[in-house]
């Protein structure tokens, strides 16, 4: 059973304490797994659906909210990701005009980005742990990297191909 208020708080906190569309992933991965409200597989599913749907990639959490707590979870998540930028931009905008170009600000953004990327790899490894590091899984993973790196193959096509491989092999 998920507690809607607690779910909203987890989503809100993760959005408030991170920046960019996937910066909240490390925090959510830790919080939701600890409570047993989401599984590694659900994270992978939500990320995949987020890649397929239109709009900013950051909306992948709405899919996660739905998988965790249905329509209520999706609605709470939507509210939780819209409020932080809205509140911050409307309330403390003056600070940005003054500090936006400060070297410390640039440094902070860089450090945050580096940490998100570092933890991202760990989260991906954990998802792979739960799926199993089998030769087939590794081949699919490397195939997706190779196709994605060309920048010519749409993400949707990569995921469809992977799904077909899954249907053929599993």
């Amino acid at each position: 059973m998920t507690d809607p208020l607690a779910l909203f708080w987890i989503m809100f906190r993760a959005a408030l304490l991170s920046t960019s569309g996937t910066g909240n992933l490390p925090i959510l991965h830790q919080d939701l797994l600890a409570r047993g409200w989401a599984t590694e597989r659900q994270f992978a599913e939500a990320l995949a659906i987020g890649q397929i749907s239109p709009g900013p990639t950051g909306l992948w959490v709405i899919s996660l909210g739905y998988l965790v707590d249905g329509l209520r979870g999706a609605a709470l998540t939507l509210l939780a990701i819209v409020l932080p930028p809205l509140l911050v931009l409307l309330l403390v905008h003056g600070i940005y005009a003054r500090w936006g170009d400060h070297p410390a600000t640039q440094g902070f953004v860089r450090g945050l980005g580096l940490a998100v990327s570092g933890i991202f790899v760990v989260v991906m490894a954990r998802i792979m742990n739960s799926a199993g590091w089998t030769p087939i899984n590794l081949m699919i993973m490397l195939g997706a990297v190779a196709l994605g790196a060309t920048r010519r193959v749409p993400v949707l096509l990569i995921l469809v191909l992977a799904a077909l491989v899954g249907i053929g092999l599993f």
Partner: protein
Amino acid sequence: MKDLQSPAEQPRRAARVSLWRLLWIWMTIGVQSFGGGSATLYLIRRAAVERYGWLTEDEFTRYWGICQITPGINILSMVILIGWRVAGVLGASFALIGLVAPSAAITVALTSVYAHFRQASLVRAAIAGVVPATVGLGLLLSYTMVRPLLNAARRDGRGSTAAAGILLLGSALAAAVARAPAVGILWSAGALSAFLQWQRLARRRRPQ
């Protein structure tokens, strides 16, 4: 918000549009943008700078800089800022709703269809293939996030490059081995990098 909206910065031939037209413009951007944040940002730039002249190129870049340090999804911050610039609070609200509502609805619809068939054996097999592919795409995403940061660090010099490498590996190790709280890792890395960058430039301004 007046700091961002001084009269001198007002674009000269900004197109005046009604709120409903605004809503429509943002909805089409949201629904059209497949392929993640950079696709969305490209469409926003085309509409706001090139088509409607709400902002100049420089303002667009500066706004995007502000969005990098705003909590949450950067694109949403960008939409709020531009919407505000065009028509105040109502403009910001309409822009946000326009961009998010259709995309969120499609995301929910896709997820609910998926959740319905989640246990079907065919879907399970398909997802067994999709999960490792998602991991692959996630690794690629991580690489595209980190590459510009490392390049910028390399331009700053050897010290910054080493610091960036240590922050990257340190965060990964802290998460993998020590299982430290993610918030703690993110903010420590941010604070450390902010301090180093500030010190580096302070030293440069004060030649011995």
